[in-house]
């Protein structure tokens, strides 16, 4: 099995430099209309991509599919060489370790300080204490929180909490960073700082996917923009902008 996995990953890696591939992916929940309907999406290594759309457009479903929290009803999903429609349950943790995730509501452990929140991600993948002591301060410095490692989440501003969350997502050096509405709870100034941080992370080689509502930022940053509506991709532009939903 392990051998097959390696083979499959190699094959795909040789075939192209795509890190995320969705082929004709549909997802229908037990009730209601399909949340995703025949979606095709190809993202290359090192890209910075915005995914925009209103609520009900299928963005959240897409994120859940990419995390393998959900399985598609039909179609194929390949992320970093993992075939997510066929991946075994016990392989999922290993897959997710290459994926950094940032949420709108930060999801920090409230009873632990900044250092422990970031170290937590390393403990989970069984990094030695010695390495944790080296890695965590360095990543905290990258996100600009070197001086606040002892603070508890509630002592931090929203922007600072999101930086901790980003540090936690990055400390295991993932190939992809998924950010689900990372600025949804932040004021414009903090939102911009977080976006700049994500851009900087992308420049260092990490593929970054940002799901967002923030029109101003999307329009200003001139990145690839994938727009979704009612479960389908309605536009996919390099250096795109936020398409207003007028009709």
């Amino acid at each position, binding site marked *: 099995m392990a051998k097959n996995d390696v083979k499959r990953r190699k094959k795909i890696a040789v075939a192209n430099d795509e890190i995320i591939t969705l082929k004709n992916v549909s997802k229908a929940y037990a009730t209601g209309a399909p949340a995703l309907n025949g979606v095709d999406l190809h993202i290359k290594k090192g890209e910075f991509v915005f995914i925009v759309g209103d609520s009900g457009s299928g963005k959240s479903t897409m994120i859940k599919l990419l995390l393998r929290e959900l399985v598609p009803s039909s179609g194929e999903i390949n992320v970093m060489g993992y075939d997510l429609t066929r991946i075994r349950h016990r392989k999922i943790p290993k897959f997710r370790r290459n994926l950094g995730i940032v949420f709108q509501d930060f999801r920090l452990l409230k009873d632990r300080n900044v250092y422990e929140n970031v170290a937590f991600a390393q403990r989970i993948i*069984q990094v030695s204490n010695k390495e944790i002591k080296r890695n965590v301060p360095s990543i905290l410095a990258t996100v600009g929180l070197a001086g606040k490692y002892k603070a508890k989440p509630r002592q931090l501003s929203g922007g600072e909490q999101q930086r901790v969350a980003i540090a936690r997502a990055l400390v295991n050096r993932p190939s992809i960073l998924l950010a689900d509405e990372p600025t949804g709870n932040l004021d414009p100034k903090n939102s911009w700082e977080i976006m700049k941080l994500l851009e900087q992370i992308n420049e260092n080689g990490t593929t970054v996917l940002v799901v967002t509502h923030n029109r101003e930022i999307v329009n200003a940053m001139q990145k690839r923009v994938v727009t979704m509506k009612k479960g389908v991709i309605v536009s996919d532009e390099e250096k795109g902008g936020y398409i207003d939903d007028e009709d």
Partner: protein
Amino acid sequence: MRISTFFYTIKQGIINIFRNKWFSLASIATISACLFLFGLFFAVLMNVDSIVKTAQEGVSVTVFFDEGISQERIVEIGEMIDKRPEVAKKRFISAEEAWETFKVEYLGEYADGFTENPLADSASYEIYMNDVSMQPALVTYLEGVEGIRLVNRSEVTAASLTGINALIAYVSIGIIAILFAVSIFLISNTVTIGISVRKEEINIMKYIGATDFFTRSPFVIEGMLIGIVGALIPVGIIYVIYNHVIEYIMTEFASISNLLAFVSVETIFTQLLPISLIMGVGIGFLGSITTVRKHLKV
């Protein structure tokens, strides 16, 4: 698993206990209450069992022989008795011995008036059985043996002792099963509440890529530690209570204490302590592992 991970997991398990003080206390109280009842029951049971056993050991069947039976036939009958599977041991009581005992027990100084042994034909075998329930079969057999005049037995005692034994077995199995089920149910509820508090933490762990094992381990260790504490408390309490109760009965009811030999506190606790610990750890383990499993499907 790395050693540092192992210690981290244990440490998290311990920290979890303190982090959710009230849930931990509720769980410990639950297990303690169940194991306390179990312990009390166990102590009483062991004493009843010991009393019944002592009583059983005293139950015997006595056979008397036909008048003028030969000494050879008595030996033959003795050999036949020895071959029976029911028989644990037998004792031959000669006519002289029977008379001596009778004199001492019932006659005292009046015995001097007798010059001949009035119990001349009262030699007997006193037969002790492996199991009281075997008595009817043995008696039926003995009654058919040639040369035996009379079989004396204690039917009522035997029947009631067998009954008590069976009753004790059923009741103990029943009570242990109920207590175990109740504990697991209560623990599972407590862990569920504890987990819903930490659902977010479990979610984050799963998103970051923690294996099920890594996610589950601190909860399981927490459950087992709670189980250990929950077992030690009632065992300690019962130890103190048991000692006091026995002391009280021995002094206040000296007459009973001659009849009933209580099982020593050491005998009870060399069994009760490991059983309680195993049950406590088992309840904690099962309760936490089943509950975490339900919540791991992220």
